[in-house]
């Protein structure tokens, strides 16, 4: 069986950055497996700008951002195999792969980095009633059709969900001559970045209906109408609030799910809150020698953060291959008031420092993030503004970690006692 020190599953931004980081730590024998016909992952279809401000201090488009990493990988001995599907990963780090060039091949890996990214939730996942006509796409599928294959998917468009891909597609379809009638969001707040509300909807006078959803789909062959209704606090449609839109296209931007079929099959422990692997501070999963980074671990807002996290995983995989293991007793991270999940979910007490990534469950103004060791507060971070659509992060230095007494820390939101209070009710 062919052997590689490190096999990275996925040649998107996470996989490229992880492989490069491991290479820089002296790992020579690295293979990246990519199922598409080119590396770069989803960035290839994200032709809009706004990537790389943290990383490169300039504003790049998706293909430019990916291109920088692809060029760096080309200067190394890292092998990139495209058109290659991983069928199965087992607990002994054997990968069963299939590709036109190599046929079926089993590969033994010293360490594995999971970097498969995420996929879109579909109509089936949110159970929209109505006709099963054509003209209903996930926003990302429409984005690929338009930006890579060169097909317009429709002329009169309604977008369900205000996630970033939906917002970006509202602008993109408008610029290409389509009429985007509305963006409809079930929640009382947008799931996308505020800047995208401004530059993708407001710039083109596209209305955003918060606390609304699609309640019927009509059309014989092609989509003809969608019905949109307001929802109450329990997200149930309110009768009598129906609006009918004549449209030929419905784009769904209703969330992303980490793509963990391979991880589950291998027996990697999955966190039901992130739908990604449970990881240590070095992004190692429950199976030793298997690491995870990027959107397969938890869905990120910014590729810059994906790159940073992936470098951490790449370095950790290199350390693992060099026989270095993190030390210290296990401390679990728990989600307190207002916190939806944390990554990592656990860490070794001996860690040099700890950066905790998490999402809040509601919009908060003038609130604070508290890290609790039992009843004792060990750190507090003020935040003017927090929203579920924007990932939060806090960093705990080693001095604080050394002082931890319990076997778990809780991350929680302290709601405001001054000013306008929180959570903020939305119109």
């Amino acid at each position: 069986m062919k052997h590689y020190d490190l096999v990275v599953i996925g040649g998107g931004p996470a996989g490229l950055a992880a492989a490069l980081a491991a290479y820089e730590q002296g790992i020579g024998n690295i293979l990246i497996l990519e199922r598409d016909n080119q590396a770069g992952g989803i960035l290839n279809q994200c032709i809009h700008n706004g990537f790389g401000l943290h990383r490169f201090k300039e504003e790049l488009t998706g293909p430019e951002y990916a291109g920088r990493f692809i060029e760096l990988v080309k200067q190394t001995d890292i092998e990139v195999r495209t058109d290659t599907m991983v069928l199965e990963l087992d607990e002994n780090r054997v990968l069963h792969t299939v590709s036109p060039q190599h046929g079926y091949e089993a590969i033994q890996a010293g360490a594995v980095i999971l970097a498969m990214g995420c996929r879109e939730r579909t109509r089936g996942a949110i159970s929209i009633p109505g006709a099963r006509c054509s003209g209903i796409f996930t926003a990302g599928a429409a984005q690929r059709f338009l930006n890579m294959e060169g097909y317009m998917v429709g002329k009169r468009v309604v977008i369900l969900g205000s996630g970033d891909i939906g917002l970006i597609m509202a602008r993109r379809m408008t610029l290409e001559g389509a009429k985007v009638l509305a963006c409809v969001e079930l929640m009382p707040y947008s799931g996308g970045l505020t800047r995208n509300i401004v530059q993708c909807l407001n710039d083109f006078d596209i209305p955003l209906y918060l606390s609304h959803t699609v309640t019927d789909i009509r059309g014989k062959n092609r989509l003809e109408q969608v019905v949109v209704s307001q929802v109450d606090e329990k997200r149930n449609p309110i009768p009598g609030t129906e609006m009918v839109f004549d449209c030929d296209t419905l784009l769904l931007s209703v969330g992303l799910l980490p793509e963990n079929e391979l991880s589950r099959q291998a027996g990697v422990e999955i966190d039901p809150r992130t739908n990604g692997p449970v990881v240590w501070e070095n992004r190692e999963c429950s199976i030793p020698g298997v690491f995870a980074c990027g959107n397969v671990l938890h869905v990120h807002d910014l590729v810059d953060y994906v790159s940073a996290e992936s470098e951490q995983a790449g370095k950790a995989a290199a350390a693992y291959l060099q026989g270095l293991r993190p030390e210290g007793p296990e401390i679990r991270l728990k989600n307190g008031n207002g916190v939806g999940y944390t990554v990592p979910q656990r860490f070794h007490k001996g860690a040099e420092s700890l950066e905790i990534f998490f999402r809040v469950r509601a919009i908060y103004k003038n609130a604070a993030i508290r890290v609790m060791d039992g009843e004792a507060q060990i750190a507090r971070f003020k935040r003017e503004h927090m929203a579920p659509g924007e990932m939060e992060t806090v960093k705990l230095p080693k001095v604080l970690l050394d002082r931890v007494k319990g076997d778990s820390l809780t991350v929680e939101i302290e709601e405001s006692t001054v000013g306008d209070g929180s959570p903020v009710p939305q119109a």
Partner: protein
Amino acid sequence: MKEIICITCPKGCHLKVDEESFTVTGNACPRGAVYGANELRNPVRVVTSTVVVEGPQRRLPVKTDRPIPKGKMFEVMEEIAKVRITGPVKVGDVLIPNVAGTEGNVVATKNLP
């Protein structure tokens, strides 16, 4: 005072801009001050799109190499729609100089072999 959200980076600072002096508060970085003042005087945007490739890759992504006046976005799109290329093209190659009289150039954002 006009309240706007900065779109310079994904952070999305909530800016307050004085309508007379164009002074900006609430920005976390100097780019926000520039954006806030410009947004009231002459709003500008980078336009990204694709051009037709006469070959198997079908589309090549492009952008304006600087922000162009917001009101010119659709004119720029019309210019981009006229382009047909075969390659080779490198990232940064100018495909349309001074697009729609904006002084911005439309440049490739991906290599085309």
